[in-house]
């Protein structure tokens, strides 16, 4: 399901919808009844009419949209960044300040959406005007662009200079206040559309440039990958499906003892422990059984270490430092009570990492121990009497032809919500909760 869909060249289209929305806000701000109160602002010796302070803008936004100050600052900031409101005193600082700093609305003639895209010619005329009006007034980056434009559109340069002179002459005939306002508006427009640094994302080609560069980089990386032959990979899927086929209830309609009522171990569940080490560890009962086996073999510290590392990886950020220290004390320090056997290279790297503990500092050591258990203890567990006895005593699930959903035609007991346990559910709790605690029999629900 999509809310926004971008077609080719859609970046422009996406921006336009944003502009329209911002324009709605701007229009509302200038509403004679519900809009903002304007006042005259002093700029040096001239009085500029119809200006407002940053504080006014923020208060209006808070009141109108029922938002907090932070959000109002954020939204107002966007309006300034995209040129709908410009600062009078420091035109190059395109931020909204929540104080007495004066701002003015940009005239719709200079809205980015109206004049998209800003043309080379207009920019040349603007720079020429600035150059003529006050020699040497152009900033460094403006000087560079001016000379580049001069080379680029040299054929129309006469027109550019003529236009600039005409516009300057016309503006001299205006009142000083109006002239200053017009100059501010024009300056604000060009600051947005030809920013000195490529920081604003308005510049379409800058964005495209970036995208293409990152695409090239990821292609290069992809070319360097190791790939596996299709025949091997695809064979893997066939094998996986075959292995799990009997355990797929939707396909087989083959029932293990109803997992929704009891926590019995049945042969299917035990069989899955032999499919992969991950299956054994993921099943809480499997993990417990494996621990019991390791205790007999006096190598339980490996699983304890692995579990402690998992805890660090997935636990609360605030407790990481403490947990890493504990793990070091219990498992890694020389002479530790439950010292784990890691190769010296990994040990050195881990010890180095512990000096600056973070969430993944134990990863290498954990992986080493994981593979140790997987290669050594796990296969022996599968051959052990412990596992074999369990398998022999387990319940064989009923095989039925039709798909009988576990809770069809059975009493539906409500089971306690996991949220009832204050702390993490332990296996013992799990057993107690699962053992068909007789709750209320709910009324028959809708059945198809």
């Amino acid at each position, binding site marked *: 399901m999509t809310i926004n869909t971008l077609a080719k060249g*859609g970046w422009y289209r996406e921006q336009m919808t944003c502009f329209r929305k911002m324009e709605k806000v701007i229009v509302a701000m200038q509403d004679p009844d519900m809009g903002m109160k304007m006042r005259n602002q002093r700029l040096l010796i001239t009085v500029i009419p119809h200006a407002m302070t940053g504080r006014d803008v923020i208060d209006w936004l808070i009141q109108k949209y029922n938002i907090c100050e932070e959000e109002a600052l954020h939204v107002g900031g966007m309006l300034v960044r995209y040129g709908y409101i410009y600062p009078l005193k420091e035109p190059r600082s395109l931020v909204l300040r929540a104080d007495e700093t004066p701002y003015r609305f940009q005239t719709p003639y200079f809205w980015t959406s109206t004049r998209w895209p800003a043309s080379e010619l207009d920019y040349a005329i603007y720079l020429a005007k600035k150059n003529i009006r006050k020699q040497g007034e152009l900033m460094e980056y403006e000087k560079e662009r001016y000379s580049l434009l001069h080379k680029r559109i040299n054929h129309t340069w006469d027109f550019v200079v003529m236009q600039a002179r005409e516009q300057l002459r016309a503006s001299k005939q205006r009142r000083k206040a109006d002239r200053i306002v017009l100059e501010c508006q024009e300056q604000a427009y060009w600051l947005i559309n030809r920013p000195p640094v490529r920081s604003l994302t308005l510049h379409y*080609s800058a964005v495209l440039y970036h995208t293409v560069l990152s695409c090239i980089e990821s*292609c290069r990386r992809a070319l360097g990958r190791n790939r596996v032959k299709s025949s091997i990979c695809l064979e893997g899927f066939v094998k996986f*499906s075959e292995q799990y086929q009997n355990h797929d*209830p939707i396909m087989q309609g083959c029932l293990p003892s109803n997992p929704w009522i009891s926590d019995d171990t049945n042969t299917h569940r035990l069989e899955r422990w032999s499919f992969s080490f991950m299956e054994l560890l993921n099943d809480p009962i499997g993990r417990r059984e494996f621990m019991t086996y390791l205790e007999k073999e006096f190598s339980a510290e490996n699983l304890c270490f692995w579990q402690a590392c998992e805890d660090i990886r997935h636990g609360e950020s605030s407790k990481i430092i403490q947990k890493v220290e504990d793990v070091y004390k219990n498992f890694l320090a020389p002479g530790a009570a439950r010292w784990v056997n890691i190769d010296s290279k990994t040990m050195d790297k881990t010890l180095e990492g512990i000096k600056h503990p973070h969430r993944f500092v134990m990863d290498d050591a954990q992986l080493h121990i994981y593979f140790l258990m997987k290669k050594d203890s796990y296969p022996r567990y599968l051959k052990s009497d412990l596992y074999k006895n369990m398998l022999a005593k387990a319940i064989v699930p009923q095989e039925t032809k039709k798909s009988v*959903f576990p809770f069809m035609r059975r009493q539906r007991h409500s089971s306690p919500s996991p*949220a009832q346990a204050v702390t993490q*559910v332990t296996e013992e709790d799990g057993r107690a909760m699962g053992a068909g605690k007789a709750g209320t029999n709910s009324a028959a629900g809708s059945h*198809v």
Partner: protein
Amino acid sequence: MACQGLQKGETLASLKRECDNLKKKLEEERGKLNDVELHQVAEKTEVLGALSVKTRRVLKGHGNKVLCMDWCKDRRRLVSSSQDGKVIVWDAFTLNKEHGITLPCTWVMACAYAPSGCAVACGGLDNKCSVVPLSLDKTENLAAKKKSVAMHTNYVSGCTFTNSDMQLLTCSGDGTCALWDVESGQLLQSFHGHTADVLSLDLAPSETGNTFVSGGCDKKANVWDMRSGQNIQSFESHESDINCVKYYPSGDAFASASDDATCRFYDLRADREVAVYQKDSIIFGASTVDFSLSGRLLFAGYNDYTINAWDVLKGTRVSVLFGHENRISRVRVSPDGTALCSASWDNTLRIWA
């Protein structure tokens, strides 16, 4: 174009050409190890008969389109979210509504159940993803305990907890995915690379558990490393927006559903698309996919109100499930594989088995 842009413009064209050349080379490399097709390998497997799957439950209670749902690990509870801002936690077994949370925003497009079962995450048009702890006190206003964790600059389209309640992974219309620390709300890692809205993500079921896949409106499906934030692999073969991505149970592949009315299967080790699930009679876009427990079946929900079940290996359609009266927004197989839940714009959820 600006004069600065003109300078870049010349290099931009040549960069684009270089990019296209690299893409062609990549396709060639990928093709080199393509020695057999999936349906050929699958010839020796038996043909699947039609599924005898029926609606077993209809969950009524939402007042508007149901946009998302997620199962709890206990295999009977689920959480669903809707366009009217309501999030409901159900016991699908008994049809009891256990919790109801009203959010101040509409279009709650993403919801997820925490692994512990003690909290849910939800988010959407408010550009945030919040975590709500589930309390059993019926009089307690759960919305008051809602905690904002993720903050994006556009709508949140998908969310999932990682292996614990402490970390949340989100994807958003702002084109990024992000990993958050639930306790502090801190941004742990952000993932940049999509050039349009990201609509879906899924965590990999792997031994090391450090990758996830995302799909978006730029027609790309990207695989990411959660720790470094890097884009490891990228697939671009769909012809329209990718609405949903889901890993194959072994973690070696994933499937995607798209507005181009196809679902596709990508192998991560071979690094290419290995199957396309399409039919001339299927015209409307697919919005969601999920695998059955063995990975043999792929359930896909479409905008023409149906759910199609595909044989993943042979590439053929096994069954069609009718019943919903509007678009399917989400299908999810229960954690033990016994049932399929579908959420729809017809305001209901159905359990099939």
